[in-house]
């Protein structure tokens, strides 16, 4: 038997009896960041491939929501900060060792890009849109001239943003559940998948929905592969990571993870998408909403469970 108690009555709120420094804000922010990355990735990709007219939702319409998504995400991040008046200190240094730092800088780059991309396509929704000021018109002309370059930059930053949402967690060796390099790719793929789901949700063209249902199906397959791989890695690792895996394999997060994330968020939408591709009548809204729901649940469950996993000494 080994019993360990803190006899001095240590009660640091948010740390004891269990670390809970990050609440709903961080997982919400990571979900929205991943979603924005997914939408921008496909917008840039299909623009570069010159398929703007075949897949208009992906290139033109879905990205119009990205600035809103990013702003809500950044707002959540801001609410999370305990020392709010000093938030600008984030932008006084670049610290490559700190994922939080290069993530903040990535957002600093991709948020204006998303605004520009949305502005370039606003005329497709409001044909009578007028920029009023000549300098705005000049800026629009400049951006249109360099649209291909913007798309390439956006493509790269979207991938960095998607990976960063996972690396933010995986850089913490103190939290064994988070401390796996699989989280980067897993959150990237999940972000792309939620992006594809949003495009499916908004698209009115059957061709476009079919393409993104196919893409989503592949992404869900990769996600399932990564999740299985993550648990294989944990179970083959040392005791603290075995304990971390047990949070999901019989522990308190077993039911929410396997029901909400894996079954409802991945397997059911995959089956529905297969049925749809086989020409069964499936309302497109169901798989798309389930994928988005699974994406948000995954962030929440991993954020909360990670804070319950720790080294024992």
């Amino acid at each position, binding site marked *: 038997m080994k019993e360990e108690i803190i006899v001095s009555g240590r009660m640091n709120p948010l740390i004891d009896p269990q670390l809970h420094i990050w609440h709903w804000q961080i997982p919400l922010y990571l979900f929205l960041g991943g979603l924005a990355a997914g939408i921008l990735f496909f917008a840039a990709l299909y623009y570069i491939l010159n398929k703007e007219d075949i897949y208009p939702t992906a290139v033109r319409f879905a990205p119009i929501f990205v600035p809103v998504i990013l702003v809500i995400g950044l707002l959540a991040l801001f609410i999370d900060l305990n020392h709010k008046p000093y938030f600008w200190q984030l932008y006084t240094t670049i*610290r490559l060792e700190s994922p939080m730092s290069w993530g903040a800088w990535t957002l600093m780059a991709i948020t204006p890009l998303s605004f520009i991309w949305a502005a370039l396509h606003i005329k497709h929704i409001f044909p009578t849109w007028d920029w009023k000021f000549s300098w705005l018109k000049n800026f629009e002309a400049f951006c249109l001239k360099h649209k291909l370059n913007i798309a390439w930059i956006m493509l790269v930053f979207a991938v960095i943003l998607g990976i960063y949402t996972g690396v933010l967690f995986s850089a913490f060796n103190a939290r064994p559940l988070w401390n796996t390099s699989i989280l980067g790719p897993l959150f990237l793929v999940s972000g792309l998948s939620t992006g594809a789901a949003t495009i499916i949700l908004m698209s009115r063209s059957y061709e476009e929905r079919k393409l993104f249902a196919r893409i989503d199906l592949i992404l869900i397959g990769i996600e399932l592969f990564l999740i299985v791989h993550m648990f294989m890695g944990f179970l083959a690792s040392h005791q603290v990571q075995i304990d971390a895996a047990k949070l999901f394999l019989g522990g308190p997060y077993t039911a929410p993870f396997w029901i909400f994330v894996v079954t409802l968020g991945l397997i059911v939408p995959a089956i529905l998408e297969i049925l749809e591709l086989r020409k069964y009548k499936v309302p497109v809204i169901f798989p798309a909403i389930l994928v988005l729901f699974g994406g948000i649940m995954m962030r929440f469950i991993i954020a909360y469970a990670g804070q319950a996993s720790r080294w024992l000494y």
Partner: protein
Amino acid sequence: MRYAMAIDTKKCVGCSDCVVACQTENNVPIGYCRDWVVEVTDGTYPQLELENRSERCNHCNNAPCVRCCPTGASHFSDGGIVLVKEKRCIGCGACIASCPYDARFPHPNGYVDKCTFCIHRVKNGLNPACVEACPTKCMYFGDLDDPKSDVSIVLKTRKWKTLIPEAGTGPELYFLI
């Protein structure tokens, strides 16, 4: 210069004077603490072993909190003491999540707070408040680069351990066993 602390688990009686001394010296807000005492009971009755440990920030030489801080608020000060610059800290909580010892906490004023090895006392040639207050004199503080310091001498003559060295943080808090 490399500051370190050694705590004699055989002499510590777990009175928590170090905790109160720290709270008084550093004006730690009520309900929070920068150091704490852990009592470990190991074995099966009647073969029980008891270990008392006064714990605090380990002032790691490969500190994950310094690495993950996005603004450089968490930094290494003189002699490897890990400190937080209040006016650079945005209170994001990354350092709190990164600490395997859970040694940091959010101060009610927003920034992150932790043990400073009482750097304001150490700079004036004094010992940290916890070391000074210990009634059993079970704590040793000093410079590991100075072979004549209290902590260097006691670490040469006694058996010791650090907490979870396998986490790779290079802790500078030694427990005499």
